[in-house]
């Protein structure tokens, strides 16, 4: 088994996509995964945008483990017992929910069915370089040779760091999530959230669910489970912990969220069947490695920083799939040109820059600015909720909206002009 055209490291969405497309094109592909089966180390929110996945698997709608199509998007700002909620009812089916454990397993099965050799329980320890080019990978005492290696190791880039292509990430560019899976009868999910049989909801919550620390809460409905979680920026979270602003464990924030009077009715009798955590990227392009390709090497997915964190939504799976699709095209192009040299693989970055992924990453840089500005998390939510309370909780004549905003700004010690400027700057790039 010792020589492959392509070795792919990591059977997440990115790795399985690359392995699938290259095996389908007739190359000899080895897909390596450290977990027991693909997906066993993965956890997400979870909804995936379908069209970029259909570009790889036109049969997606028939075959993939699609739990529900998102027909409702909600955003809430929560402070204390008060909440403001905005709901958008979609007119079209663009994204679906599914546990990532299931979705990633399906993608790896597709790669295997296309002819890739899938080996799990293999921790790749090194991408091996010889005479200035990548020649294969090493795990334990075993070396596997490859003409080209595709690094799809995800956000924990042990291999790229070893190669010197990435540094240990800046904590402010990362976020950590704690998540629970709640088991609930599908009919109750549909009744309580107002959904039809295959419809789902995606819900983002900002405010004191994170104690005003940059981050948020999420709720996604799967077929017969609900995914709820709390995400905290690692840098700001650590600061808050050291300063004593954060005194409780992250699981406690999540449990407070689950049992909050505004939310708990949705799943009041339901049990938590799994609890977990995973880290994600918030830095966008700032997290990108020093290079996306080298002699005999391509980097795809989270490892390449191809994750759009647009505040109201994390898009990492469709972008991982797309970066891997583009990488697979570049590999085939390089093969036709006669070899996987750096020069011949340059098409990867060029194609990527033209894809929607890159455009999204650049356009949404305003979001990175939000995450770089704790003001939006600690000051804006209480201000908005206070203004709403003045309008909706007046015993006698309620103030005008403008009055309510003005006095709330004063009471929260917010400079209105500064707020408007900040909001204006961000909205243009969200």
């Amino acid at each position: 088994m010792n020589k492959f055209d392509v070795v792919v490291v990591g059977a997440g969405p990115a790795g399985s996509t690359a392995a699938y497309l290259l095996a389908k094109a007739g190359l000899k592909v080895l897909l390596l995964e450290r977990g027991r089966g693909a997906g066993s180390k993965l956890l997400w929110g979870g909804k995936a945008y379908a069209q970029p996945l259909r570009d790889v698997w036109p049969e997606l709608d028939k075959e993939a483990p699609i739990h529900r199509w998102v027909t409702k998007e909600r955003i809430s700002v929560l402070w204390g017992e008060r909440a403001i909620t905005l709901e958008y009812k979609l007119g079209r089916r663009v994204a679906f929910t599914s546990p990532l454990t299931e979705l990633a397993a399906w993608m790896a099965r597709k790669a295997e069915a296309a002819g890739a050799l899938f080996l799990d329980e293999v921790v790749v320890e090194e991408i091996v370089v010889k005479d200035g080019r990548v020649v294969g990978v090493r795990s334990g005492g075993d070396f596997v040779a490859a003409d080209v290696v595709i690094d799809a190791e995800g956000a924990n880039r042990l291999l790229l760091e070893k190669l010197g292509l990435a540094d240990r990430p800046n904590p402010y560019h990362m976020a950590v999530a704690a998540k629970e899976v709640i088991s609930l009868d599908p009919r109750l999910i549909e009744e309580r959230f107002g959904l039809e049989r295959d419809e789902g909801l995606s819900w983002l919550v900002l405010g004191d669910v994170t104690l005003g620390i940059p981050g948020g809460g999420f709720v996604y409905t799967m077929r017969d489970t609900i995914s709820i979680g709390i995400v905290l920026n690692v840098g700001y979270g650590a600061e808050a912990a050291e300063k004593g602003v954060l005194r409780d464990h992250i699981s406690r924030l999540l449990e407070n969220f689950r049992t909050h009077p505004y939310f708990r009715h949705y799943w009041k009798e339901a049990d938590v069947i799994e609890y977990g955590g995973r880290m994600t990227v918030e830095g966008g392009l700032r997290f990108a490695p020093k290079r996306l390709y080298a002699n005999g090497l391509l980097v795809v997915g989270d490892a390449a920083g191809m994750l759009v964190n647009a505040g109201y939504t994390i898009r990492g799976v469709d972008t991982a799939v797309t970066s891997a699709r583009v990488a697979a095209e570049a590999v085939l192009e390089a093969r036709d040109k006669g070899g996987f040299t750096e020069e011949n693989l340059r098409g990867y970055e060029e194609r990527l820059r033209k894809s929607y992924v890159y455009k999204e990453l650049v356009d949404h840089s305003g979001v990175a600015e939000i995450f770089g500005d704790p003001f939006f998390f600690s000051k804006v939510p209480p201000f908005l909720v206070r203004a709403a309370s003045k309008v909706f909780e007046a015993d006698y004549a309620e103030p005008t909206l403008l009055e309510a905003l003005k006095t709330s700004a004063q009471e929260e010690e917010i400079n209105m002009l500064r707020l408007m400027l900040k909001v204006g700057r961000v909205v243009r790039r969200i």
Partner: protein
Amino acid sequence: MSQPSRLRPLKLEELLRRNVWDVDEERHIEILRQDGLPQKALQLLCPMGCYSMAGDKLLMSYEGCVECGTCRVLSTPQQIRWEFPKSGRGIQYRYT
């Protein structure tokens, strides 16, 4: 105590009982140097509560780790040795 148990916050220990691990005999994460470690951040942000205090020292129990990498990002290679568990060991997520 009139609230049903599902409407009260569960303790971390109770949440951990929901999970499946295949724990390796060998530890994959180890504190090498205590100096300068953000003690509170590690205790509160490690989602699985793997870090706790023993006197004035930080203690790391690798058994409940989900290999998320947060403690890695909050430390240097000199402070914490961090590897993935071998042969598929560690957390076995099922519905996440």
